[in-house]
């Protein structure tokens, strides 16, 4: 079986894209911690529920960014193919 250099690069790019989206673990854990603390805060002070929810969503959306960088690298490797 003949494997050309381009094929090898494409295969390695696919593996690299898979590795890049492992970055999603971190934001997942972070968002879970934020949601858990928000739930605890609502339990302690149910009156401030709307404030707590909006603060939590804002923080989670910012924390999501690092995971999205991983996704971006994966998309670049798969669709833009900068290495070929």
């Amino acid at each position: 079986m003949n494997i050309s250099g381009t094929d090898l690069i494409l295969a390695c790019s696919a593996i690299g894209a898979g590795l890049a989206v492992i970055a999603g673990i971190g934001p997942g854990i972070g968002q879970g911690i934020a949601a858990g603390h928000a739930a605890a805060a609502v339990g302690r002070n149910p009156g401030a529920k709307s404030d707590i929810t909006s603060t939590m969503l804002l923080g989670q959306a910012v924390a999501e960014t690092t995971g999205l960088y991983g996704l971006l690298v994966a998309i670049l490797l798969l669709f833009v193919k900068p290495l070929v």
Partner: protein
Amino acid sequence: MRSSILLATSTEVDIEVHGLFSYELFGHTFWITTTHVCVLIVMLILLGFAIAANRAMKHASQVPTGFQNVVELIVEMLDKMVHGVMGKKGERFANYIGTVFLFILLSNISGLFGLRPPTADYGVTLPLALMSFCIIHFCQFKHNSLKEIWVDMCSPLPPWLPLWLPINLIGEIAVPISLSLRLFANILSGTIIMALIYALLSKFAYFWPGALHAYFDIFSGCIQTYVFCMLTMTYITNAIGDKEE
């Protein structure tokens, strides 16, 4: 049709921006893409809404009814948001923030109506972030003296030892990049997942993708709009500093 603007009509995985027709200018080939068309549609809707709102407010009555109600609700909501974050300094920025808010919100939600969201193209989000960047630094130079900015840039170390300056400079340059990439990647991920579902599950994709549209287009789109405007306002407030005029 390969170059369709409507996402839901394609039968293959189609997440890319397509060129509709090209033209030559100064020896370069430029493309009019689907993003241009979608931005134009969003712009026309906003313009139509603005003209209608202007008409309604010309014949405004003391007790608002119908369309006047909606316009007042939107304006009050935007003013309250800007005022809540920036305080009294924010009144000058309410127009800009409100405009950007409405544009990004409508762009994000346009995925719901079958368009490819314009904000899923880096060429749309980067200028938005660069405008924020320019306003942040205009405010910084307007409200602070050069000496204060220098002290601020060397901040953890004393101002006669600018070892920390390059790191602070990188931090400043990272602001527009992270602002634009956050919005871009969020909307792009939603677009990709919807395109995958419509293309690969086309036999089963009836009715239930509506729930995913509600999450990716409405919920995620609104949150990201809010985050973009909120971060812009926070950066501007930080750049102005605590001084009262």
